[in-house]
């Protein structure tokens, strides 16, 4: 059973992610950042999954919408703000990568590219290494439902299934791949249905309910640790925002559809649950909101005054081992 503190912590992480994410949209509208891609509506799946695993021990291969997942792993709003602005202190890449291309060595998050599905076979490879070394770590990798159309995805999952590797494939099914609905991606109802053809456990979960996600991930993680192999979890949710700051979603979906889904906002759902359980009071909520605002304000202010990278030897270095990274 989750303690009150943990539940509150989970809620807080979602809230912080939401406020940071919203701020990014504002910064983009103000022309202060070049690009933003959002996790709004997907926070429950991401935070629920992380809390079911062991931070600093298990491995994570997220995808670009995993802001909340990264915050749950210790990545900070300041880190994100620095990355959005391409500043030198960006800890993921020193300003080389676009924002939301995560990397966090301290939390066992390898660097990610933009090319969808490439992380899937990496997750399998990490799972294989864990198994070869006889350890009990678990790997979680996330992806959008559209990206499961890639042959890459299939090959990675297949490896994990054959070798019964400790990998959890979490598909965040937000029903769109940019403009394309899931019916243009697959002839089955959803990604979970793909599991039967690959020979692993496949399940659907309501991705707007953080506690349901937590339960499912905790259960399959335990299975993975026991050597019972990988699982494919489809978290059903909805992409409330346009695909990215470059997108205009009015060309392909109605406002009514989006509004209807806003009623299933995972943040509001968690809030309602916690209020009912008496964990969250109006006063506490106000406090948390104020704290989130302060943290986000500070993060943005810090990043804005932080220096850009300078063009030095480091920028031309493409191989490890030429210098010692002591």
């Amino acid at each position, binding site marked *: 059973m989750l303690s009150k503190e943990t539940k509150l912590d989970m809620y807080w992480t979602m809230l912080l992610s939401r406020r940071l994410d919203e701020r990014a949209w504002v910064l983009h509208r103000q022309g202060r950042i070049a690009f933003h891609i959002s996790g709004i509506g997907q926070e429950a799946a991401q935070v629920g999954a992380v809390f079911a695993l062991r931070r600093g021990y298990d491995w994570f291969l997220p995808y670009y919408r995993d802001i909340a997942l990264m915050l749950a792993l210790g990545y900070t709003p300041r880190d994100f703000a620095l990355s959005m602005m391409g500043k030198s202190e960006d800890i993921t890449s020193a300003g080389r990568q676009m924002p939301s291309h995560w990397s966090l060595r301290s939390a066992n998050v390898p660097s990610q590219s933009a090319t969808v599905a490439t992380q899937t076979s990496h997750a399998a490879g990490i799972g294989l290494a864990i198994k070869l070394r006889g350890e009990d770590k678990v790997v979680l990798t996330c992806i959008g439902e559209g990206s499961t159309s890639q042959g890459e995805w299939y090959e990675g999952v297949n490896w994990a299934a054959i070798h019964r590797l400790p990998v959890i494939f979490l598909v965040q099914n937000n029903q769109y791949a940019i403009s394309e609905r899931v019916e243009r991606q697959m002839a089955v109802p959803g990604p979970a249905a793909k599991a039967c053809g690959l020979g692993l456990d496949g399940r659907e979960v309501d991705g707007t309910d953080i506690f349901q996600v937590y339960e499912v991930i905790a259960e399959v993680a335990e299975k993975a640790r026991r050597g019972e192999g990988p699982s494919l979890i489809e978290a059903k949710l909805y992409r409330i925002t346009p695909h990215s700051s470059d997108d205009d979603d009015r060309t392909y979906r109605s406002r009514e559809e989006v509004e209807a889904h806003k009623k299933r906002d995972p943040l509001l759902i968690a809030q309602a649950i916690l209020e009912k359980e008496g964990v969250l009071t109006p006063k506490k909520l106000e406090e948390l909101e104020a704290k989130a605002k302060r943290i986000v304000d500070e993060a943005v202010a810090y990043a804005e005054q932080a220096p850009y990278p300078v*063009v030095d030897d480091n920028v031309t270095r493409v191989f490890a081992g030429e210098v010692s990274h002591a």
Partner: protein
Amino acid sequence: MPEMTLIEAIRQAMDEEMARDPNVFIVGEDVGKRGGVFRATMGLYEKYGESRVIDAPLAELSIVGVGIGAALYGMRPICEIQFADYIFPAFNQIVGEAARMYYRSNGEWTVPVVIRAPYGGGISGGLYHSQSVEAFFAHVPGLKVVIPSNPYDAKGLLKSAIRDPNPVMFFEPKKGYRLIRGEVPEEEYLVPIGPAKISRFGRDVSIFAYGMMHYYALQAAEMLAQEGIEAEVVDLRTLAPVDKTTILESVKRTGKALIVHEDNLTLGYGAEVAAIIAEYAFTDLDAPVRRLAGPDVPGVPFSPPLQEWFMPNPEKIANAARELARF
């Protein structure tokens, strides 16, 4: 003549060819209702319907593979790869299949497919939305590789590509999509695949470029002209098969060659141009063959000063050409 942007010219070429030939169809990610993430196919879904403007699954390999299959059957697919950066999953199909079908079947089968992809940096796209990939494909016999630098050529070359019985890689300088404007005739015309074009004559130094870099090379030539240096600018346009004649004639005139591309230096397209010049224009040369290219790092960095450092621009081109002219 109406003026239009590069991307409008590209859209018009597809529109006209779809109207002309019912075998032409478009397949790619978000090309339908969305009209493509850069809006290249805007309006075509509404005009030609979902059976001719097909939203593909998010899987480039099969966008191309399905295109090849349809082409074998006699269709004329235009496959859109959303960003050139995402063409690698389809590499096997393009290099191993499309490029070889004609040759391996001794001419019995052809693959009339056009693979369009926006390429290039300078748009804050970082490593995975900025890449130049032309060199990989220009190395492959059996592929034609085309990169237009202006609306007139873009329209005329794309129409030629769609009618070509061979696979054509059509890379579009996305930074120029809305930036580069130019006149495009109302009446029908084609620009042949093959010939390069001398877009500015000069006697002091030849600058070879294509796409966005050609646009910049013309600007550099303007700057140099004010200093009394007359640069000749050659728009390579068709990278494969390469137009050796135009390259060699230009070097014969100027004795000096600068090749510019935003792809990284080593084994970038400039290597081939330099090698051709070093072999066939050796006695015409009176200076080393110079290449100005993106640095040899694995992609264009995102951060403004790093991106600036990576990308060639008119100033850098002018500097390199000036140095060469004074050699």
